[in-house]
């Protein structure tokens, strides 16, 4: 296993390290997915989806801000870390693609996030209060993704074909979600089983085929959590961070 790059300067040390690691992992997931959804603004297929996608993005951004603030200064962490220091899953950084691609990414992630936050909320760890609030938002996100998976899968031949392509293409990024994160007290194998059951049920109802291939490759297992990202992520960060970096020390 490669050594993770050093944590940000303001991250706490000692006993708090595990908590910081977990806050960055969950916070980066929410931050990066929120950003990707922001790229849809003005481009959605119907106005109702402009509202829905922005709504989901805003929820995720809210979660990211709370989590990153736990680990340090939210803006320094979002705008001044480089690619290798981001701890998000590779799944959430995947480009939007077409609407089916975005919806399947949402389906995979929101199902995971819902199970994860439900378990965190039920525990007494440091993330329980946040998870308690997030789980309400995420259940809406999951419902939105499931409804659209059904519409697109069980819609026209063209929409089914596109959705199946997205289901297959994103499948190999889903295994990474169940790599244990330091600082989170979670029964990961049980979470994975529950995720697979739910996803299988939704895909079948949507008349789609559950992919048979592996859910991780040798190159993707746990990579995002270690700061190893796919190529489009650097460009995403360049856009996100450009203005902040151009005015060092400015407040906005």
């Amino acid at each position, binding site marked *: 296993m490669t050594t993770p790059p050093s944590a940000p300067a303001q991250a706490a040390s000692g006993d708090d390290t595990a908590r910081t690691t977990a806050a960055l992992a969950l916070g980066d997931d929410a931050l990066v997915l929120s950003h990707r959804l922001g790229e849809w603004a*003005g481009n*959605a297929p*119907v*106005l109702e*989806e402009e509202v829905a996608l922005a709504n989901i993005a805003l929820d995720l951004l809210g979660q990211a801000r709370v989590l990153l603030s736990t680990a340090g200064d939210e803006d320094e962490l979002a705008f001044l870390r480089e690619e290798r220091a981001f701890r998000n899953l590779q799944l959430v950084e995947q480009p939007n693609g077409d609407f089916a691609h975005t919806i399947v990414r949402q389906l995979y992630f929101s199902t995971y996030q819902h199970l994860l936050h439900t378990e965190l909320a039920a525990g007494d760890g440091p993330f329980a209060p946040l998870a308690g609030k997030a789980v309400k938002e995420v259940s809406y996100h999951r419902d939105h993704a499931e409804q659209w998976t059904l519409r697109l899968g069980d819609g026209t031949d063209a*929409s089914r074909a596109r959705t199946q392509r997205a289901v297959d293409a994103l499948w190999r990024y889903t295994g990474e979600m169940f790599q244990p994160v330091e600082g989170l007290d979670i029964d990961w194998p049980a979470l994975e089983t529950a995720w697979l059951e739910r996803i299988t049920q939704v895909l079948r109802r949507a008349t789609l085929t559950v992919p048979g291939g592996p859910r991780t490759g040798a190159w993707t297992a746990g990579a995002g959590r270690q700061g190893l990202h796919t190529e489009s992520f650097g460009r995403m960060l360049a856009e996100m961070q450009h203005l902040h970096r151009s005015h060092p020390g400015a407040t*906005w």
Partner: protein
Amino acid sequence: MTAQQAGSSATLDAPPALQEHFDATIARDQRVEPRDWMPDGYRKTLIRQVAQHAHSEIIGMQPEGEWITRAPSLRRKAILFAKVQDEAGHGLYLYSAAETLGADRADLTERLIEGRQKYSSIFNYPTPTFADVGVIGWFVDGAAICNQVPLCRSSYGPYARAMVRICKEESFHQRQGYELLMTMMRGTEAQREMVQDAVNRWWWPSLMMFGPPDDNSPNSAQSMAWKIKRHSNDELRQRFVDMTVPQAKKLDVTLPDPELRWNEERGHHDFGTPDWDELMRVIKGDGPCNADRIERRGAAHEEGAWVREAAVAHAAKQAAREEKGAAA
């Protein structure tokens, strides 16, 4: 109490009683509702105005949406997301209001994309810096508020009610825009310059948002007689200038008009003349961003066609399954 002839177009020979009833409703400052009889011209004028208002909300998502992915702090990013989301919501209310007049949202969208219906001239100007986001909040939402607050008393009920909701949200956005500029003006020299530059670029286009001067605004008199509009373009423009000048002073920026000064006698600010030729060029499609805005709206619509078709096909399958279930 009302004659119910929804969607009637045979108004050339409208029975005098209907016309009288309509005129009396307007005269008493009461609301016209979707099922009431109304003159054809009134219906058409409203459809045009409400649809163009809806289109403006939708096209208006673009210049600010540009900055969602580049907002320099997470707080500003959240504010922008919320604002752009509100604009989509406003578009939805307004299309619904237009549909109560017998218009069809899909048809109105086509008209926008084909350039047969307009949207506010202001959204044809580009947003090259982040300060533009704040100035749009301050000027453009400020101008929209001047225009829209009186529309909360517009004679057509569904439009007036949509405006009540919209105005509440717009004034919130205006304050947030102004607060961004305040923060930037207290910041670095580069930030202050960015604000002044944005103010210089947006001032005149914002004054043009109120439309041509009163002596060259052919539809205004009728719209005011019908109480669709409550004030003339020039009155609203003056109100906007009077409201904005003290805000500019407080912000410590200058407005790019050498003729701008307080007129004690009038109790208003005098100001220079906007470049009306520029307004006409922008309205006719020849502004800096007209082609891009429509192209992008058209592309989103076209690329989304398969999604809308899938939703329709799925709904039909569901309905068929339910029918089969009920029959069994």
